[in-house]
């Protein structure tokens, strides 16, 4: 009936303004990303002189060439993939197990246990006490610290619990247990196959957090060879502002700075592509995750 009714002039004006604002917000978000992409294949002089606005100028791949030659980036990439895969696998398995247990109302002591978990979301020992524990365990400098510290999130456990509580009815287990199916088999052959969407959501959350984070690596790692990509990026993107100013040859400095500028654009592209590619594939799941998260409790 909305279609049959003639739109009022006010609503037509509203639609025009709304469309304009939507296009504007799309461009405001998209343009910086697009600019990074075209700048990464343009030469630095054109960027600096403001010629690169809509299309790349004097296309060159020197930035990417330098990136491919940079051993630090390869090592960082390898480490990040390793840490992300390991941490996500551990995290998803542990979280699904805990989330399922907490969704079962016949688990005696459930309330006490879950408050033990939730408490840690709101109060923690802080940086130094945690650091001292890791030190006591002899894990300073070990990649395992970065993998483990990112692998359990109580928030995600609660999301998983809400999912199981709403999607696995208690009658299902009752029926299965009458047929002689125990908890273990029920979990493996009924719960897990029914929870593909929550597994995707959790995997996405853990993977994004681990891939994008750098804090644990900054605090607990001490060898360049263990650094994940974000630590390497930090050096290249933010740490390199101080190019030695006391080098005599001004041209050499300028050349270095020119290439460094192009490299920065390229590095941003190289670092962001995996997550940005992953995201359209799992977009429907992450929207779902937000929904589940919003009905927690």
């Amino acid at each position: 009936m909305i279609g049959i009714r003639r739109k009022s002039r006010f609503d037509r004006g509203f639609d025009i303004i709304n469309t304009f604002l939507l296009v504007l917000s799309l461009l405001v978000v998209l343009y910086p990303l697009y600019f990074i992409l075209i700048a990464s294949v343009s030469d630095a002089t054109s960027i600096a002189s403001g010629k690169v606005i809509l299309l790349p100028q004097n296309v060159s791949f020197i930035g990417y060439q330098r990136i491919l030659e940079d051993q630090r980036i390869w090592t960082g990439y390898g480490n990040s993939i390793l840490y992300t895969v390991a941490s996500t696998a551990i995290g998803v398995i542990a979280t699904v197990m805990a989330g399922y247990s907490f969704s079962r109302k016949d688990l005696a002591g459930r309330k006490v246990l879950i408050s033990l978990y939730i408490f840690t979301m709101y109060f923690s020992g802080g940086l130094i006490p945690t650091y001292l524990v890791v030190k006591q365990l002899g894990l300073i400098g070990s990649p395992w610290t970065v993998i483990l510290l990112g692998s359990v999130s109580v928030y995600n456990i609660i999301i998983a619990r809400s999912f199981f509580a709403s999607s696995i009815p208690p009658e299902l287990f009752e029926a299965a247990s009458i047929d002689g199916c125990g908890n273990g088999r029920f979990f493996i052959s009924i719960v897990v196959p029914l929870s593909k969407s929550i597994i995707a959501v959790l995997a996405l959350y853990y993977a994004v957090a681990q891939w994008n984070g750098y804090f644990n690596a900054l605090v607990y790692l001490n060898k360049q060879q263990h650094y994940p990509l974000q630590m390497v990026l930090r050096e290249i993107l933010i740490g390199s502002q101080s190019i030695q100013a006391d080098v005599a040859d001004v041209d050499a400095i300028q050349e270095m700075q020119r290439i460094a500028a192009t490299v920065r654009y390229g590095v941003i592209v190289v670092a962001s592509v995996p997550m940005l590619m992953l995201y359209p594939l799992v977009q429907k799941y992450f929207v779902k995750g937000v929904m589940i998260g919003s009905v927690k409790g």
Partner: protein
Amino acid sequence: MQTAPVVSGCVKRSWYAGFIQSLRRNWILYAFLVPTLAYLIIFQYWPLYGVQIAFRKFTASKGIWGSAWVGMQNFEKFFNSYMFKDLLVNTVVLSVYQLIAAFPFPIILALMLNYSVSNRLRRATQMVTYAPHFISTVVLVGMMSVFMGQTGLFNTLLGKLGIGPVAFLSDSSMFRDIYVWSHIWQRTGYNSVIYIAALASVSPELHEAAIVDGANKLQRIWHVDIPAILPTAVILLIMSTGNVLSLGFEKVYLMQNDLNLNVAEIISTYVYKIGLLNAQYSYSTAIGLFNNIVNLVILLSVNKLADRLSGTSLL
């Protein structure tokens, strides 16, 4: 089946017997909790035990128990230090600024998407505005430094308008704006998802009724949509109020430079520098503990307020 003990006439299993029975029947479920519980005990509860070094003069060679007890000395040192006021002000101002400025944008975006006349434009805008959420903090701050440098895109565009180069990154008066508005750029799309869901749950009959009554779209937003998303908005606002002092470390630390430290030094970055770079373990722990306690108090009060206002409690 065991028979339950009879307590004062009615059949009631004791807490203990019930627990034992549940343990026997559901031992696998308890086993499922072992990995996460072990993790929390090691990396959350064990450090809590170590928090007592905030009240000691900790030296690694003597260990926690061997170090001398100094009571509140570390806290007094912090409250009397010249950094105290700056740190508190910097943390709270940055946090509250972000909280207030960022709050309306996801709601506006969700409403705009909801009233889009073109499905393709709606899908494209959603797709694009969600994307920055997946960009890392390091890359975001890296983007700032390439965009806002002397010859960066911002100054290029400003130059075309005849506005001469602005020193975005070295001017400490712009630090907070850059921090907050880059957050808005990065998170508005993602944060709008929850409002889009709330809007989708509005009954179409309400809209039809409003149309029959001659309401235009703005009136429908005001009288139908806003009331529908208000509870979500209030809860989210309250939740973020509870995090005012727990401002993230990562982005601020990356954005810091020698010229903006007077506004960019916040509690979490100071705790890191004092603790790990200067190795003043006890002092740093005390500052962190102070921060956590204040945060917890704010959270609990806000939670109580939420409970009273909307009947929805978070804890």
